[in-house]
């Protein structure tokens, strides 16, 4: 019993102190980390592909008038899967390494993008789905609003 306790103690002491003095010394994520997404409004063509594939449906698309498409990113629902960045044909959606997103003000998690649809007005879906199965979603059924996450 004593020997086993000594072995256990040895495991403990051999490791030394491992915890980081977070938040004074934050741990930087590796490349390819899925942090908060940002959208470059200049590049966005308003295809809505990101909204189509977003599993938690946190991107709301609306067309207030024929020339204008509005994308609202409600990032408090984001699950950091990066599907939006994967399908974006213009690479307008990028994933950053930012992970300290806790906030008291929900507006900090909202992004509002307005795109003038002067050239792509008729097609509306000018992105290339990554797999043929994804193409199904183009004809697939979607509920009118994103109000479905509360069980």
């Amino acid at each position: 019993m004593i020997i086993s306790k000594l072995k256990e103690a040895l495991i403990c002491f051999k490791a030394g102190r491992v915890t980081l003095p977070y938040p004074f010394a934050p741990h930087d994520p590796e490349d390819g980390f899925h942090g908060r997404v940002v959208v470059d409004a200049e590049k966005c063509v308003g295809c809505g592909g990101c909204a189509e594939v977003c599993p938690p449906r946190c991107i709301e698309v609306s067309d207030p008038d024929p020339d204008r498409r509005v994308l609202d990113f409600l990032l408090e629902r984001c699950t950091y899967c990066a599907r939006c960045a994967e399908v974006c044909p213009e690479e307008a959606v990028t994933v950053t390494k930012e992970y300290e997103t806790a906030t008291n003000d929900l507006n900090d998690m909202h992004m509002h993008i307005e795109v003038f649809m002067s050239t792509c007005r008729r097609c509306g879906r000018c992105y290339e789905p990554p797999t043929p199965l994804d193409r199904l979603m183009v004809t697939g059924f979607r509920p009118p609003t994103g109000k479905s996450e509360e069980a």
Partner: protein
Amino acid sequence: MTTAELVRALRHDFGAAIQSVEEPVSDKVRVAVTPESVVAVAKSLYRDYGARFLITAGIDSRKDRDGFDVDHIFSLDKEQIFFIVRTTVPSDGPHVAAITPEVPAAAWAERELQDLLGVKADGLLDGRRLILPDDWPEGVHPLRKDIKYGDWPPLGDGTGEATYPWKPAPEGTSTVVVGPFFPVLEEPTQLRLYVDGERVIDCDYRGFYNHRAIEKMGDSELTYNEIPFVAERICGICGFIHSSCYCEAAEEALGITAPRRARYIRSLMLELERIHSHMLWTGIAGHILGFDTVLMQTWRMREPLMWLCEKISGNRKTYGMNIIGGVRRDISRDLYPEILSVVEKIEQEWAQLYDAVQGDTILKARLVGVGMLPEETAKALAAVGPTGRGSNQAIDARADHPYAAYDEVPAKVITHPDCDNWARVVVRLEETLESVRWIREGLKEMPDGPVMATDIAETVPAGHWGVCTVEAPRGEAIHYLVTGGDNRPDRWRVRAPTYANLQALPSMIKDETIADVPITLGSMDPCFSCTERVEVVNMRSGEAETLTHQELLTRSRAATERLRGR
């Protein structure tokens, strides 16, 4: 025995009761039988052919054939066969004979069938509600197609009374209520212990307090490609298991083959997940016993693995890598040496830990001979995972129904004959080492190539089905999928391993002391769902309101003031 021989034998025994046989994929059979003969067929499968009951899936098929399908899913482990017994009951006052009296493991599945589909199971000894809340109105069954997702019927019967018919306390016992907030695991579940002094004589269980209606969401809201991400959130620890299981079942139903490399990546991630889950569990088990050093040290050893997973997938947990047809992210060959060095460091430290705790008599005093689950009980209740394997049941989906890359690189099944909490600890400790071995082998064998299938059909036909089991760290997860129109499944049935194991709890804690209940429950690595909000339901009006921290505090203050008479 092949499926053809089995079907021939059943036809011989039951004749015209066997109505039709489908075998879209080899070794996965669905047999339609008449409602009158379902019990006899199930009994024969269980008794004569050694089939193990997995789960029952009820399907509302009223729009196609004016009835409800009841699919009992069985597994013949040695023969690697899935055998589904389907019976269709008329939609008017649906009822079916319960198989539970003959196949005890089906108890919860049939109670759930009554709750969610409203198909009455005749002959259940315990036909109480399992999932629906106490004040849920009679006759409203959420999984029926005429109930929309998010519909909420008026609760209560207007009297403000809603009680659950708890088992009466046996003579000479007092009742200790643990839950609905279970303090040890900090999760919503309720156990009523009927105790004589410190000794537990009997117990009763009520759970599903935070049922999330994910199956309902799957067949009425989500699309095929969204489900993997929701499936991954069924569990916070073994999420990848559920997304893999769904994807494999869906690929089977849709006739898609994932590329070899994608299947290897799935297996690799599953094994990484098993390692960190077992390490997490070992820490929690230590914590339950007050041995926080085990918690701190195992989690310290685990942390590099979490960082590795973050590097591979972009996310520390809930990787979001699976999608129907393959995986979304390839693993660069440059990462192989790092993967190996991380897991081999774990292997070395884990071996030291295993060696140290084996001689720890104080630790063993709390584990050896406690929480006994005899072999025959484990078999009858179809306990899975380390809970079953700790009772000498060689059940492991990786060997029984190889999926992902386990057909090419098999994993060793680890069992222990002692049937107690210590046996379950040993099984997990050894499985961790076995997973490291698999990763070493698997990385060696991993082929190059694409990670995403390209031969995906443009349309998905309705009525196809697929079934898959994946060995989660806690046991075997089952996903059964029937395709539908609307780009979503007609029915997506999920069974998480804890569903099977929890049914064995009453026999495990019987005659133990109250102090041993937490570790015995903990030894099956239970996984309930978690919530951090407080919801208060007004029993009179049936209205629910969610309290914030501040509101809860205000109410507590008011109660103190009232008691002090100020």
